[in-house]
């Protein structure tokens, strides 16, 4: 009996010691996340389509690339594809260009295809992009939705009072207009581009705002759902371009947001590839968009916001 008690006492003492020792470590502040490596299993046979057709008459472009391994930052372009666009009964050829116009920057990049002629899409028509590459035909189709004229109240701008006063030329006569990047619950999805020119930096600034026709909790909760701050001179004007988008393209965009900046821990869904409109296992999207453009003086816009 004595031996049993002695053994038990030692055991209890050891257990209690272990317990107290571990309790002293404040596990509450333990880091519960870490970076770990995962394997990359690249399927190079897939093509990525990235492009659009709008109702603007111009040379339209798109890019064709291959998927990148997880380590890579440079996509392999697809060269030598036969690309053409079919709108109703009309066919428009694209040709490969080594120059890619990206915003204001022009740089050499293979895999860029530009329409041979200046072309424009047709509202309410199906636009089908055909890509013939390595014995396969990929088709990406999208319907161009007729855009409705811009109504300023669609855009929920709000005026930011002066945050601070500064006598530096850059801040002089500047105001800040705020707007949320994503708006939810609209009848028709649209994309708005708000273009200002920073005269001091001599740079065109583009802010993109999305109107979604459904609510996505990941989007609403995302930190990227915060405010876009548009800095502009009080005497300047702003260009607002409204783009119509089809419901499938809206779905694709939502998928992309869910897989990128809306990817939050609490609400993230089972991961999956965005729903591409490219057939034959292709990825990316080719979309058609009707455009409405309007230039508005900032003074007028500011007055409108204050009256709202």
């Amino acid at each position, binding site marked *: 009996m004595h031996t049993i008690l002695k053994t038990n006492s030692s055991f209890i003492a050891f257990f209690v010691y272990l317990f107290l020792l571990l309790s002293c470590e404040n596990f509450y502040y333990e880091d519960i996340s870490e970076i770990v490596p995962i394997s990359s299993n690249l399927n190079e046979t897939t093509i990525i389509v990235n492009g659009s057709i*709008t109702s603007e008459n111009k040379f339209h472009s798109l890019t064709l690339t291959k998927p990148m391994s997880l380590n890579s930052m440079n996509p392999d372009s697809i060269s030598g594809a036969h690309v053409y666009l079919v709108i109703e009964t009309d066919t428009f050829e694209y040709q490969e260009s080594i120059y890619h116009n990206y915003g204001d920057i022009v740089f050499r990049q293979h895999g860029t295809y530009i329409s041979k002629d200046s072309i424009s899409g047709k509202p309410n028509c199906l636009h089908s992009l055909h890509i013939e590459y390595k014995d396969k035909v990929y088709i990406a189709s999208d319907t161009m939705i007729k855009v409705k004229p811009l109504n300023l109240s669609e855009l929920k701008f709000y005026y930011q009072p002066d945050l601070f006063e500064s006598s530096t030329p850059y801040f002089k006569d500047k105001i800040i207009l705020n707007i949320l990047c994503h708006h939810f619950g609209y009848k028709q999805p649209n994309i708005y581009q708000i273009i200002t020119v920073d005269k001091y930096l001599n740079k065109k600034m583009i802010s993109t705002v999305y109107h979604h026709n459904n609510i996505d909790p990941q989007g609403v909760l995302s930190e990227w759902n915060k405010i876009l701050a548009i800095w502009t001179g009080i005497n300047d004007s702003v260009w607002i371009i409204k783009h119509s988008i089809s419901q499938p393209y809206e779905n694709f965009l939502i998928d992309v947001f869910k897989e990128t900046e809306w990817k939050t821990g609490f609400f993230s*869904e089972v991961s999956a590839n*965005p729903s591409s409109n490219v057939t034959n296992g292709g990825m990316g999207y080719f979309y058609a968009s009707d455009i409405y453009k309007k230039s508005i003086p900032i003074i007028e816009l500011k007055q409108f916001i204050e009256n709202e």
Partner: protein
Amino acid sequence: MKIYALLFIINVNVPLLFCSSNYVISGYIRDIETGEELIGAYVFVDSIKKSSISNNYGFYSITLPCGGYLLKYNFLGFEIIQRQIDLQNDTIIDIYLKKMPIELEEVHITAQNNYSSSLKYIQLSTKQIKELPSIFGEPDIVKALQLEPGIKNIGDGSSGLYIRGGNRDQNYVLIDEAPVYNLSHLIGFVSVFNPEMIKDVKLYNSYIPPKYGGRVSSILETNMKEGNLNKHSLSAAISTLSGRIAIEGPIAKNKSSFFISARKSSFDLFIEPSKDDFLVPGFYDLNTKINFKFNNKNRLFLSMYHGYDIIETYEEYINLWGNTTSTIRWNHLFNQKLFSNMSLIYSKYYNNLTFTNDTSKFDWITGVNDINFKYDLNWYKNPDSKFGFGLNTIFHKFTPGESNYTQRNISRSRAIENSLYIFHNKKINSLDINYGLRLANFFNIGKTTWYTLNEQYIPVKEHNEGKGIWNNYGIIEPRINISLNIKNKHNYYLAYTRTSQFMQVLSNNTMSYTFFETWIPASPNIKPLISNNLFSGYTFDNKIFNTSIEVYYKIIKNQIDYKDHATLINNPCIESELRRGKAYAYGIELSLKKQSGKTTGSISYVFSKVYYIIKNITFDEKYVAPYDIPHDFKILIKRQLSPKLNFSTFWTYTSGRPTTFPVAHYYLDKHEQDNEIKNVPIYTNRNTERFPNYHRLDLNLSYKTIGDKKVKHEIILGLYNAYARKNPLGYSFDSFDYGMGNNVLVYHFYTIIPNISYKIKFN
């Protein structure tokens, strides 16, 4: 000695030669200390090898020819009582069993195999649950069940039960017959069951008797304590996680009693959400039960459960959810052979999510309300034959998800679920046959909106229903269990069950608790789940060791899964986001248990597979279920160090659960002239990758005072995940920097969690 034996045999058997009439012995088997009825207690008549078992209300009935018998009454952890009777007419014997002194209590059975009724189920008592390692020092039924072979979870802190290829929504969880729709407190770290209030737990995961239905995988039946009929007592306990208190006692001695128990989490009492403590969870629950014994033939029980959870952040976010149940039960004894129970049950589940930012407020609510009427009759024809009949009608009211952001919510709907059942348990020598039939039907009724879908799952027609029945399903569920018991040691069984389920959970991911999960009813687009299950097994039990091998195969029809990036919120036609197919599950379960002695425990290994065949989800249509865990190895060891001191340890090693990982990426210039490039991951097919294998060691030491003392103490010290294994809870690709290597952010639960709990009880 031989003369005495001869006299005994003559005494027992000679009257049988002259008696042709049968008489009934019936009554209740109770705990002498509390007066509460004991569920699943046995009465044996060794001389003629007959037995009976007390039902959920402690009632037993056994019919024997007139004569002299030695009756033995037995229940797990209680002393055996013997009664010598001379049966000459119908007799009522109420038996009071006394708890075994702890010094003598060497039998600790983790999961009881009940051969008297020949049905295999897992039974746990509060005492057993408290002896097992737990998380945060909070003894928990669900965590205890997860230690059993074949019952799986999908990560630390999960309150989900994945049983024999079934999803977590395919288990019918009952508190005093009332369904509980969300088992989780604290996002699944604790279950809704307060350990103080539980009297008895039974899990039917093989043969599901025809009395039960509504879910395809298992029935988890829990009964709340009724309260001490003899004396008042008060107990209080505090653990790392919560504080709890329980009061019980007689209202009128030996006629009525009450039981009240409350539990409250401790985190939220001391920590306010702040920038440092971003997410603060809290919960409470309350259990009450009152029972009235009007006479020997009539008894009334009133019980209620209410649970509430909150998770809030510093600024934006509040999530509230909870279950409320209440049950009124009336036991009536028509005669010594015919026992009835009538129940009226109410159950409510809600989940409310609110978040606000500078410009908007999002409010989302989902829930289920049930009113349920049940009537059950048990006819104890003779010791070899028992019949049961019953009916059940449930009125469901579904709120599948509504938010203030849109008028296009999923339409509320109502339904009536009816069932009728009959069963017969027949013993023929060593062969026990349980067979029966359950008829289930489901009516969608009342005002709602639903859509006809085309082959591409696009809504093509809107239906606005008014009054009356607008859709129905009827399902016949035959069930049979054949069991052969040889010399009370070898038991072979073969069972077939057909089960159905008319409601399913939709949630946005595979965690045990998710912020967006909603119950939706069967409808023209969502067919009811129908499962055909085949089980077979062999068990050897010699009182010291119990070893078993079991195999199962099941096919579940109308299994649903989501298409990629399904829109589950604010989508009035949520059914268009779902795809339907079949789930297949099979497995083999091996276990060895040591049931007596100072060292007890079990070791088990399970191999199982569960996969879906559903069109339009993956290219080849066949993929593993998100809860497919092929290998599952568990060891549990319990050691009684002294009458007051117990030590237990548990180690588990399982396959990692399936998941979907990125394997490549591409850049997307989202919009023409947009300066921002999206870095889009490319994933493999659904569930083709796996988490790392899961393993964990838990240690537990409990001390309690023994004897008839006025004040009793109980202290539990524990270590959860003693060697600090970082088992992943989930992966996040939001900070995934594709240009910097193949890296991903992995979240895991806290590593070593020391825990302590203390309980004091005043008698």
